[in-house]
């Protein structure tokens, strides 16, 4: 079946099998390999993308669900529109060493950006509760939480500018 959606700001039309997953479509058909598949059982969160602004696990989303929707993947995260700058959340992860092996990082970033957008005054408890569906197998949670708090503050500051 043919589906049309907006992918990282660009209108996109593709042919998909109904029995296919968004994570597979992104990686294998559209070659956007920033979205990682960790567990493929909707537990680890490495595959989180934003569907119509909300975080979802793309390994547990059928491709037909994209029809008419707006999808943002890790490749679409950016600082000021049109710039080559990193998103403030990505900057915060670099600044505070919020990653070790980096495999979980795309999903952590997408979940963190959604979390910060939903609640401007995030607390550490909010961040730990909000990252419940993202697993870091290096167990580097301490710096990830620090990074998310710093990134959320930077997103707020950027909004105020």
């Amino acid at each position, binding site marked *: *079946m043919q589906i049309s959606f907006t992918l990282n700001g660009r209108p996109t039309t593709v042919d998909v*099998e*109904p*029995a*296919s*997953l968004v994570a597979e479509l992104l990686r294998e058909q559209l070659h956007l390999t920033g979205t990682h598949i960790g567990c*493929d*059982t*909707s*537990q680890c*969160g490495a595959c*989180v993308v934003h*569907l119509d602004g*909300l*975080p*979802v*696990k793309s390994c*547990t*989303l*059928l491709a*037909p*669900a994209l*029809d008419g929707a707006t999808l943002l993947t890790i490749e679409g995260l950016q600082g000021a529109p049109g710039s080559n700058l990193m998103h403030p959340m990505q900057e915060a992860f670099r600044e505070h060493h919020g990653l070790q092996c980096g495999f979980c990082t795309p999903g952590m970033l997408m*979940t963190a950006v*959604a*979390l910060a957008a939903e609640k401007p005054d995030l607390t550490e408890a909010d961040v730990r509760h*909000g990252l*419940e*569906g*993202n697993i870091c197998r290096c167990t580097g949670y301490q710096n990830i939480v620090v990074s998310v708090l710093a990134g959320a503050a930077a997103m707020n500051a950027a909004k105020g500018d």
Partner: protein
Amino acid sequence: MKPFAYHQPDQIPDAAKLLTTIEDSKLVAGGMTLIPTLKQRLASPPALVDLSKLGSLKGITDDGATITIGAMTPHAVVAASKLVQTKIPGLAALASMIGDPAVRSRGTIGGSVANNDPAADYPAGVLGLGATVITSTREIAADKFFLGLFETALEPGEIITAIRFPVPLKAGYAKFKAPASRYALVGMFVAKFADAVRVAVTGAGPGVFRVPPMEAALSENFEPSAIAAIKIDNDGLTSDIHAEADYRAHLVTVMAKRAVDAALS
């Protein structure tokens, strides 16, 4: 996943017709249970009937003494709803504890209730509040809806369209989460109405059930201490890798006290 045909009807009668005419076809709402089931090939339906184009199934309405939540309303919307937070804060709290943020973006109340997973959260809220399940053909009282392990009163071709909740004086939910899955090892929903108290348990047995001795004690005195000495029988409770039946029975009392505390706070 085995291949399947995909239908996206925009009218409820069309969806019901597809469901009855294509043998073994399945409804898909948020897919948070069905998609993992398809991926593991525990189910291989020839066709899926996607309910996402049925706009009338989404949204929350205030009817005064009741609130009605459309079947396709995601958990995140219920959790963040000012209406639900004001009128039944215990139900908004329950929705905020389901799975993780990504699951709450997609998972729906109708899907959860229709699936009737023995450890799902919503069945406790629906039974604990004495809600009414509204379907494409009739209305079913919660007490007659949940029939045990993944079993409900839904007939073939019948589709849940909304759940109608009576607004209680107080209500609270407390759950002890299984550490890995975040499903309820035991979840307790308590609701105090002018004429009665209802107590519902999820996670402890093969399906959601009520606890009449706790309801009687809380009707006399709606305080955690009123039920501290009430312990339910281990018989029929689940024993598995996560917890033995006697531990689940113990948690029923502990979490019921916390649910009353939550309702009072």
